[in-house]
């Protein structure tokens, strides 16, 4: 016993075990409980009588849920691609020895400090067709100026994309900037010696070398997509109609206002499976890299 204790003096196992215990209890406990609830007819208060997979059947025959999932895919792809591209462009520009770099950097970064609720509200105000940008342009004499995406069911989802890009590109910029600063100077010398055009250098030499950095960005952004709730609530409340409904909002609505714990739990479980599916490529590459 004594020697066992001695051997533990330099041992991360205990820390890992305690930590994982906590994660298991709170996170996986919750997943299990949610999984259980999804098999019941629980409404407001948990009921523990299992009825099978009815809630899942209901979920996938629910038009709003299907629209929500589709919206999440559209939003997710545009948001991730947009944020990555915009953030990367800003990082490249910031990396080109510009004046007042830290000022620009601070400006690009501060939205991260703003909560998604406030982000949503302020963009809602900016994009309001009457009182916002469109109204301002029309008042200024440009009568035909139209920018009514917020209230146009076919376009409203793009306004969410704009606001979320605004919120997150700063983070991507900083991460990519850090990656760019880490690029070996000899690589730049080689690029100049070979006379490779700048855009090709970035696209074909620099960024492929930064794959892990970009992969972490994508994972971070993806978790925002899946959990995306606050922004939608503050900006469009899912409307016009159900044009900007999202799975997380669906789940929250059914947890509380719609008093349908069972269906909300089923939705949560499906969301979790979806995120696992999206994470798979990332972890596949992680596993391959490390072993």
């Amino acid at each position, binding site marked *: 016993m004594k020697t066992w204790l001695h051997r533990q003096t330099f041992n991360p196992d205990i820390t890992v075990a305690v930590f994982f215990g906590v994660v298991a209890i709170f996170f996986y406990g919750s997943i299990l409980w949610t999984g259980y609830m999804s098999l019941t007819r629980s409404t407001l208060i948990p009921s523990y009588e299992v009825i099978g997979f009815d809630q899942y059947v209901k979920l996938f025959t629910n038009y709003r849920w299907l629209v929500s999932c589709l919206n999440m895919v559209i939003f997710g792809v545009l948001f991730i691609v947009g944020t990555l591209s915009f953030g990367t462009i800003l990082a490249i520009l910031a990396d080109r020895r510009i004046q007042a770099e830290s000022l620009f950097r601070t400006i690009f970064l501060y939205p991260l400090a703003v909560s998604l609720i406030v982000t949503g509200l302020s963009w809602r105000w900016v994009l309001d067709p009457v009182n916002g940008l469109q109204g301002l342009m029309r008042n200024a004499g440009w009568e035909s100026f139209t920018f009514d995406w917020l*209230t146009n069911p076919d376009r409203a989802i793009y306004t969410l994309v704009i606001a979320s890009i605004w919120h997150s590109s700063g983070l991507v910029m900083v991460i990519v900037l850090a990656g760019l600063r880490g690029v070996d100077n000899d690589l730049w010398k080689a690029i100049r010696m070979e006379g490779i055009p700048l855009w090709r250098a970035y696209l074909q030499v620099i960024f492929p070398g930064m794959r892990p950095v970009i992969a972490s960005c994508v994972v971070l952004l993806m978790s925002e997509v899946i959990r995306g709730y606050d922004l939608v609530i503050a900006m469009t409340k899912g*409307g016009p*109609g*159900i044009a900007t409904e999202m799975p997380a909002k669906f789940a929250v609505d059914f947890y509380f206002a719609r*008093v*349908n714990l069972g269906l909300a739990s089923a939705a949560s479980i499906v969301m979790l499976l979806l995120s696992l599916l999206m994470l798979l490529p990332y972890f596949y590459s992680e596993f391959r890299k490390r072993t």
Partner: protein
Amino acid sequence: MNLRRFTSTISVLGLLAGSNTALAQTVDVQHYWTSSSESKAMNTVADAFKSKGGKWIDSPSADFDAALAAVTSRIAGGEPPSAILMTPNSALRELAGSGQLRDFDDLAAEGGWQKVMSPLVWSKLNVGDHLVALPVGIHAQNWVWYSKPLLEELKIEEPKTFEELFSAADKIKASGRIGIAIGGEPWQEVGILFSSILALGGPDYWNELIVKRSPQALKSPVLPQAFDIFRKVSTYADPASPGRSWNDTTNLVVTGKAGFQFMGDWARGEFLAAGKVAGKDFGCFLTPGEKPSYAILIDVFAFPVNKDEDRIKGQTLLAQSVMDPAVEEQIAEVKGSVPSRTDVDTSKLDVCAQLGAKTLATPGAAVQAAYDALAGDLNGQVTDLATQFWTDKSMTTEAAVESFSKILQSE
């Protein structure tokens, strides 16, 4: 070691030092009334309660979802609030059904409360023959508000039918103003649909359709007509409509930028807050139909079962304060609602409140609003359908009616 117990013991000890009574009558009230008019209404109750020696702990949360989340969490965590502001919907029925709510049958018998309430209201407050909710005030959903100066300017009479309403709206539109102000949020939209159904079908049809959900009612021609009217109303939506809050929308009527608005009588509070006078600056009528109808929404307090003696006493005291006719009258005055007790003096209320009180007292006029009548999920599904029909102009009335029937028959 129960830390919470420990700290509350400490604080109780602290209180004892300052007060004479050995047991404070305490209530912890979870509510969502945080705007200035709502705050005034809540303060009316609180003042009455405090004047009787109670101690009020305020737990406000304006976000309705969050408030409900907090309530269920607190019940689950064994620290229920003493009173919850809510409406008599499926959540209330479920809480009561699972034995989480205290009943007030004894107090009701003592105070003869059943006699001073309309049967419909009384039935909404009872679950399984027990009185589990106490009313703070009554609202109706099926109101229409209009700008009096605007109608006078265009020489329009108060409409008596939907046809008159639409032609009036057209005139207003032609004059460059907004005919019907609409806030494009699902709950506002579905309110218009329900108001149309109630107006066209009348209270009896409403009870068949929404409360009993009978298959015959679903085949009635009223339903497609109501959807047509609903679609017609949607054509008046101005570009800024989608996502606009109801009070921003009411403001359009207040400032004369728009003619009409379909909205419950909480809108009256908005007119009053802007210093407007009912009958002079703004007018009101219930959605026009052959029979008068009144879709009631009741604000109630429900009282989760508590174990602490001082909390139980606090609940009793709060119940008495809420049911005090004077308090009811005051709430109606500041918040735009109608008193739930029929023995309250309504003569001091304005014309709109009086119209409401009068219709409520008309036998057979009052029905429960869909929000309370339909289980949470059904109401939600109809809301989803309504907002889909509202935005998607290619959806036919037949398709909408069919989906509507499917939803109502699904449970």
